[in-house]
């Protein structure tokens, strides 16, 4: 483990990071958002099933770093119709807590509520996000983001944006 990996994060740094990540997602700033991720990234939105075996169960999103790129590249074509035109988004991230440290990563929990407006109407999304943050090359990076939607047991509308 590197010295940088042991560096403690204070809550203020954590909050600034998760707010920034939320803003990039809200504003469809795909390049800035992509640059936040580590190479071993995991972007995971579970469906209704249990969380024990994501490789053996369907998820709404289960993207490794490659698939994050594919997803963003599809959006960048301008012909990802589920996001053409892009949704108007604003989310509030709150109840931010540092939950602990695992293998040099800082595990952070937060709640969010998000309004999505598009021709279909205004939809409210809400849930619990767990982030794994890591120092890499002098920067704070996102190693994992798990989004547990409150309504993940229910039929969901199209989720074309970055949640």
């Amino acid at each position, binding site marked *: 483990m590197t010295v940088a990996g042991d560096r403690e994060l204070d809550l203020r740094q954590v909050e600034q990071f998760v707010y920034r990540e939320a803003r990039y997602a809200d504003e469809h700033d795909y390049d800035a958002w992509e640059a936040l991720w580590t190479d071993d990234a995991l972007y995971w939105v579970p*469906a209704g099933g249990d969380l024990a075996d994501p490789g*053996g169960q*369907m998820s*709404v999103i289960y993207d490794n770093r490659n698939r994050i790129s594919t997803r963003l590249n599809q959006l960048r074509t301008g*012909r*990802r119709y589920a996001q053409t035109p892009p949704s108007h988004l604003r989310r509030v991230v709150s109840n931010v807590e540092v939950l602990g440290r695992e293998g040099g990563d800082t595990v952070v929990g937060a709640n969010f509520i998000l309004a999505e407006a598009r021709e279909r109407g205004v939809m409210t999304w809400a849930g619990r996000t767990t982030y794994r943050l890591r120092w890499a090359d002098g920067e704070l990076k996102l190693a994992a983001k798990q989004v547990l939607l409150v309504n993940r047991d*229910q*039929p969901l509308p*199209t989720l*074309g944006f970055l949640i």
Partner: protein
Amino acid sequence: MTNPVRDATRTGPDYGRLVEPSRVHGSLYTDPRVFADELARIWYRTWVYVGHESEVAQPGDYVRKALGLQDVIMTRGADGQVRLLLNRCAHRANLVCEADRGNSKSFRCPYHGWTYRNTGELIGFPFNQGYGGKGQIEGELSLAAVPRVASHRGFVFASMASDGPDLAEHLGEAAGEIDRLARLSPEGKVELTAGWLKHRTQANWKLLAENETDGYHPQFVHGSIFSVTSSPIGALYSDKSAAVTRNLGHGHSENDLRPEFRRAGEPMRWFGTTAERVPGYVRAMREAYGPAAEQILVEGAPHVMIFPNLFIAEIQVFVIQPVSAGECVQHSTAVQLAGAPELNRRMISQSVGSVGPAGMLLADDTEMYERNQHGVAQLQPEWLDLRRGLQRERTDERGLKVGRATDETAMRGFWTHYLSLMEAA
């Protein structure tokens, strides 16, 4: 048992005037009277796909499913039999099962404690002196069972009508496509055990059913993902493709991609891989099927829409659940093949990337369904056109209508069967 389904009042339009050989009327997608007639004449009459036996593998297992608007519990009894029970207490109509799945020998209504065996039989009710003591009403009251339940290769279908064509007659030529999927398992068995994504869609269910075997749209709707992944799928649905669209009868249809895969002649190309990359699977298939394995490994999985609600898209299974004239839910999961662990996780991974609310394919299809639903509410030009490929359609050696990869042969088959059901007294 009395018929649990009330007949919808026959207030709908004259369907013969709305469904023509090469066009259909927009009101079929928007009119609530049409939806009410469809419930009575399609969803509560013909065979409808409900679930898969592998979802209730053990005695006592149950899972809640939908049959039209009906909330049904698919159970497996101690006798091993799969049954479908309507989720409604015979006393005051409360839900007897609120969990999505589980294992139980019985269901107890929380309202007044009436208890039913997982076969539907009433076995207890508190304070029984109010009914003259034990044994007075058990024979008369029970959970309603869906009158006809039958399965093919573990795919469980149901009909709310006590009589009518049997499942084999309904499936007809489509049965062979389910068989083709099962043959991809070295054990000959499909399992649907990876859980389901549920995608709420503001569109009429028929827009989905028609799109499933529409070979004209992929290059356009899915051009974004094909281009960034250099996917070969788009070419299967090009104007030059040797693949065909086939009307399988009874409203079923397929995009038969085998001509393209045979031309390539490479095992596992249908799965976007090579035999070398999945050696355990290929070995197991050759052991199970001998020389016949080569054809199976080249030809791959079916792409078949089974009327009215089951769609097998190679490695995914979709189920369309109607909600109202303007809304439905798409359920999707990855196919799992018994005896093929090397393939199963890959099929889940590929499916998670492609389908469901955030799927890189299906989210765009769903956007199209919702825009289409908006479009059909516009009053002019009234009709949706279905004539593509009509002039070059042929009849194959099985007597089935066949069109080119991008032709609307499948939609015309859907509507022919739809009309026959909607006009049946």
